[in-house]
């Protein structure tokens, strides 16, 4: 099936379907609810129920007033202009999915954002055999290796407890949708009370509905420093909140939980002392494994270190390309994590 790459997004012309388009389109598949994948006011939006509900919340009522929402839970299929679309679980954030497109004899999979390791919250990736793979490679360089969910859990809990032992307040930086809930859930499941930034707690209902608890938490307050007599709490907040944290009179120690935290230069960028290299994207070897397990011969690399990753795949005999409209390295690092 012919795939068109343009600044507007990825387009499957034969069946009139856009994949995570960058502006409003008649029909769009939304792989997950991050802004760089789910935006605009589409005629029809297809995605998992969690993805569509969170997309509607983020886009605002007015933007999606005329959008026909077509929920496609994991494992279910629909017909679309002569092709069969199937939603497959993708380990990334809650509700993230891959799309399998069966058209004639061809099987095409669009990964959206994905990793192979089991996530702290959300579904485990199912790798589907296919001919043509459109895959992300945010961390498509051989320097990126991430912690497993067990290792990440241990690091998060250990840092929080070390801080409490020394009378300091731990603050975890993670982006608002996905990482923030994962950290909050991990802390809660180890009996650690939390203060949560509103940009993160906003999505708690979907995670709770999926069975993830958040224990003893309360919202972050503007006059947080004045709160007394409270139990020690770990803060979970977004990276942009760093300046506020650093201006605080409290002794706050910052941990940054991200794929980018695998590089020491993340300290200078985030002000964090503790770097916990845990990502919702695949590390380099996971991406290679994904290609191998899907048995694919043709790969289009989108999002991230596309040129380099495509070159590495090509050296291994895969027909791999990096469409120029999706140039090397995404422009928005935070959104890409």
């Amino acid at each position, binding site marked *: 099936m012919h795939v068109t790459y343009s600044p507007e997004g990825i387009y499957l012309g034969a069946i009139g379907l856009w994949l995570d388009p960058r502006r409003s389109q008649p029909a769009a598949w939304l792989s997950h609810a991050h802004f760089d994948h789910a935006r605009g006011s589409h005629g029809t939006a297809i995605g998992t129920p969690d993805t569509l509900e969170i997309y509607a919340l983020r886009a605002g009522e007015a933007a999606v007033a005329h959008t026909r929402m077509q929920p496609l839970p994991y494992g279910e299929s629909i017909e679309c202009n002569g092709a069969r679309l199937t939603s497959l679980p993708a380990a990334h954030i809650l509700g993230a999915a891959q799309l399998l497109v069966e058209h004639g004899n061809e099987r095409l999979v669009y990964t959206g954002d994905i990793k192979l390791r089991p996530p702290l919250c959300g579904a485990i990736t199912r790798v589907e055999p296919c001919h043509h793979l459109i895959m992300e490679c945010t961390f498509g*360089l051989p*320097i990126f290796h991430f912690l497993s969910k067990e290792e990440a859990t241990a690091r998060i809990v250990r840092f929080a407890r070390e801080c409490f032992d020394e009378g300091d307040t731990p603050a975890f930086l993670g982006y608002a949708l996905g990482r923030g809930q994962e950290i909050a859930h991990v802390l809660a499941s180890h009996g650690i009370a939390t203060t949560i930034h509103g940009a993160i707690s906003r999505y708690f209902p979907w995670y709770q509905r999926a069975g993830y608890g958040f224990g003893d938490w309360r919202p972050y307050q503007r006059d947080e420093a004045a709160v007394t007599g409270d139990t020690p709490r770990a803060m979970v907040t977004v990276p942009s909140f760093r300046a506020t944290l650093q201006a605080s009179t409290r002794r706050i120690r910052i941990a940054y939980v991200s794929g980018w935290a695998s*590089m020491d230069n993340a300290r200078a960028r985030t002000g964090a002392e503790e770097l916990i290299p845990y990502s919702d994207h695949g590390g380099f070897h996971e991406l290679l494994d994904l290609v191998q397990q899907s048995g694919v011969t043709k790969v289009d690399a989108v999002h991230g270190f596309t040129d*380099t990753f495509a070159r590495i795949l090509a050296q291994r005999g895969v027909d791999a390309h990096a469409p120029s409209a999706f140039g090397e390295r995404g422009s928005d690092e935070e959104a890409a994590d």
Partner: protein
Amino acid sequence: MDLFAATCERLAATSSRNSKIRILADYLRPLADDDLTRAVRFFSGSPLAATDHRQLSVGHSTLREAVMQVTGWDKDIIRVCHRTVGDTGETLAALLHGFARGEDLSLAAAEEHYLALQRTRKTAHKVAHLVECFTRYRPSTLKYFIKVITRGMRIGLQEKMVVDAVASATGADTDAVRAANHRAGNLAQVALAARAGTLESISARLFHPMDFMLARPLDSLFDLGDPALWAIEDKYDGIRAQLHLQAGEIRIYTRGLEDATPSYPDLSGKLWLGLPDCILDGELMAWKDGRALHFNVLQQRLARKRPSARLITDIPVVFMAYDLLYLRDDMVLHLPLEARRAALEAITQQKGYPLLLSPRHEARSLDDVEQLFRDARDRGNEGLVLKRRGSPYEMGKRSGTWYKLKRPLATLDVVITAAEQGHGKRATVLSDYTFAVREGDRFLNVGKAYSGLTDAEIRELTRLLRALVTERFSRVLLVKPEIVLEVAFDGIQKSPRHKSGYAMRFPRIVRWRRDKTATDIDTLDRVREIYEHSLGGMKPGAAAPEE
């Protein structure tokens, strides 16, 4: 080395200086003597003992080649990775992830590898040795194994912290450890002596650069207190340098603690035979016909690592000495300024050109200081350095016992209200100007300046001013306020000398503002504002630095 690497990671993860020293000390304390010296050396990015002057000769391309052989990644891929990460050790270690067998690496074994790399001559053999290392040890350890080779830990660690940690780990007195380190320039040796309680026996050694004492900028002249407490020298516009002299041989070290000796063959050779061993602090300056050449001229010498004979003849360099750190067989830092100066004078008298002695001046009043500043500027020097009498030499410190007077506090546009004939070659022209700021339609004097204009400008101004004369008092001509100057100064103080009630300190003319008239000049309010600001220790917003 594994624990060393883990310690480095912990150091990187804390920004507090005290925590870093505590982490370091906790790591160093239980180490056996051999490992203590190795660890201290590795922290400063030295794979081999300081006494070993041979190079490891392992550069970035050798390291990269070994990683390419281990991982199979090509140069372009490694380049993209390096650009993303920004550090060689970190990048290569991340690439080695999954390729190593994960053996333990001791500090002793790491040192053996460094020695083997140094002994091997051929690059291909060095690469082969690195390949062996890269497939054996943990990437988290290799990260720092490589950083020691590239001599940059990038974990926010300063040698001073390691010095303080050595003191903490051994229970020795911090000042004693610092002093011993200055004498020996070899912290590994000092660490052992600190542990053995034999710091006193560490003798001073030459031919390793030592930290320079630095001068603080003088914010307000009043910080000086009594001017008679200070010895005053010109501040030179040269290259700060340390000259080490031992048995007739010299080494020159610059502020970056680099050995710059080969750049100055005119200062080395047999010139120095007969002088006692010593370390001099001073300034390298281009010098001809008894005076300093402009810094731009000296820069032509700096550009050359090995200057040609022609360049050396055209731009001869002298060493203008102003302090003494070491004499015969001991450091003399603790001796008072006067004692160091007396010993320095004896050395420079014995030697002479190209070793010069920085002239020392006396001042009894702030006016004297002001005159000395003007004289220094007239000699083409930057300003003054004031050194507190009786003070010791404080290595690596910018303490309050050395001040520099250099930059102006601000500039003001003023109008000339009176002019006076100069002296010497300026006896026939009006070269000294009294100037004023505006208060409504009145002009109130705030200072008087001499230097800053070219001879041609002074001649032209003389003609113009003579046409503006309104009254004559002996040598002083009062003129109609029409000619505007921009003047820089280092301070403003209250003064009954001028009608404005203020006086500028060290005013000098920056330029003649032909584009401005008397209505455009600064006001008394502006002068007041600068004065108030300077009291608060803050620079006024409009302050225009000279440079």
